[in-house]
């Protein structure tokens, strides 16, 4: 059964230096509050996995939490670059960052294979792309039935999955609504999971086919209202697109970034 913890306790108990951590949420429900807690607890040498690193990993990379990044699209959506990610890749600041990059289709398949307990995912992908030349985790196999050449990537099996969801009931069952991304897959693929939620309620109010994670499939739940901001939580608050635009200016310069980090992360406690 999922254990209800404070965000501070959940991060401290379940995320260790050197862990492989996947914090998912496809544009929607990005677990920013948890990311900030990881920064505050100064976790180090993490291998971070996320399809779209987004601002959350830009912040964590700039804060020095990551040694490696596995991703498939590393930009600020609709705005431009993730400057902290670029600074780490291009200049090694604040530390060298190893990268392993995929396509979205391959990562989505790899998460699903992880949830399914398989060692690999097979897809019709990467045809003619140079990505397999720079990522040794992309191989090609022959279909034993048709002989078709297909791409294979290892499944994603992180130590810890971190996601944000709309709500949990008091037993720890979790409801995810809207763009569900790969939230369910990453939790089921991981050894441990932390789910932050907007609120804990008596009744989830889930429809019969809703995306629900049962309490016994989740390790820890922490209440974190507005925990996905500046991304959004459908039914609670909208995406703060103005902040995504402003981030370009904040993150472009190391000093501006560090001062933002001090004021908005280090000097603010967990919810």
């Amino acid at each position, binding site marked *: 059964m999922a254990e209800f913890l404070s965000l501070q306790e959940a991060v401290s108990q379940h995320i260790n230096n050197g862990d492989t951590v996947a914090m998912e949420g496809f544009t929607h429900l990005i677990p920013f509050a948890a990311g900030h807690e990881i920064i505050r607890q100064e976790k180090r040498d993490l291998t971070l996995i996320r399809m779209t690193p987004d601002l959350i990993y830009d912040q964590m990379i700039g804060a020095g939490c990551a040694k490696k990044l596995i991703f498939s699209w590393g930009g600020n959506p609709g705005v431009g670059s993730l400057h902290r990610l670029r600074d780490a890749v291009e200049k090694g600041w604040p530390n060298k960052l190893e990268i392993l990059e995929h396509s979205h289709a391959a990562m989505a398949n790899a998460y699903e294979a992880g949830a399914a307990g398989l060692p690999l995912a097979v897809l*019709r992908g990467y*045809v003619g792309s140079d990505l397999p030349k720079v990522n040794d985790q992309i191989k090609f196999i022959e279909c034993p039935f048709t002989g078709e050449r297909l791409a294979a990537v290892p499944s994603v099996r992180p130590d810890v999955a971190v996601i944000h969801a709309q709500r949990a009931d008091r037993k720890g069952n979790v409801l995810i609504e809207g763009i569900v991304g790969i939230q369910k897959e990453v939790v089921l693929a991981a050894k441990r999971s932390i789910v932050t939620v907007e609120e804990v309620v008596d009744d989830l109010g889930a429809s019969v086919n809703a995306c629900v994670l049962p309490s016994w499939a989740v390790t820890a739940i922490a209440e974190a209202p507005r925990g996905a901001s500046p991304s959004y939580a459908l039914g609670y608050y909208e995406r*703060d697109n103005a902040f995504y*635009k402003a981030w370009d200016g904040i993150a472009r310069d190391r000093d501006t970034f560090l001062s933002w980090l001090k004021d*908005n992360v280090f000097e603010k406690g967990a919810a």
Partner: protein
Amino acid sequence: MSLEFTSSEMMSVTAARALTNDMTCFVGIGLPSEAANLARLTHAPDVTLIYESGTLQTKPDVLPLSIGDGELCESALTTVSVPEMFRYWLQGGHISVGFLGTAQIDRFANLNTTLIGDYRAPKVRLPGGGGAPEIATNAKEVFITVKHSKRTFVKDVDFITTVGFGRDGKARDNVPNIGRGPTVVITDLCILKPDPDTKELVVTSLHPNVTREDVIEATGWEIRFADQLATTPEPTAKELEVLRDLKARTDAHHSAAQSGQQ
């Protein structure tokens, strides 16, 4: 009297016209999204727009800033998980057109959104592939829209993130279950299409007030022009009005700060 319009508007309107009502379009963010929604709001009200965040048949009132804005989900027929989107809907063969933008494109319509320079020591690191590598091969055909400049239109891309026709124009030959690839490239200067035999991009239509020299000047290889070179029809007053309204609504929506702070 002819209307006043910018080259960007010319590009968006021309790109929009490439879409028809019966298409199911997997939409990239940015210019493709603008064009696809303009099509939906003008001549193709029933065009099916799909974004990789899982939103099927979506009808946003403002252009999304990201591929997964709430607007896309709330105005969609339904929203599926990301693995389902890529496996069932894209790889399963339900997408007629993939509509993509790019940072670099070469003469064989290969796209680079990964980096400029060498992979291990990049001069400029770009966002990466996202959905494009598989959209380009699993959709039945691909439309590309991008602004024309020498930096963008290069002879050979530094890195093939997403295949057009490969380094030699033959990358799709004898590959089973692969789409036709790029069938049209729409820029702010012209329309290009791959030569049926060599697959090299050829200018088939010049936008109004654009000369051959303008295109030659903005292209990083010896660009060829079709024998029957057309002039792209100008935007109509209706198309310009709808496009400008859409952009104004979008700008107002995305600049409205909610919290300003996290």
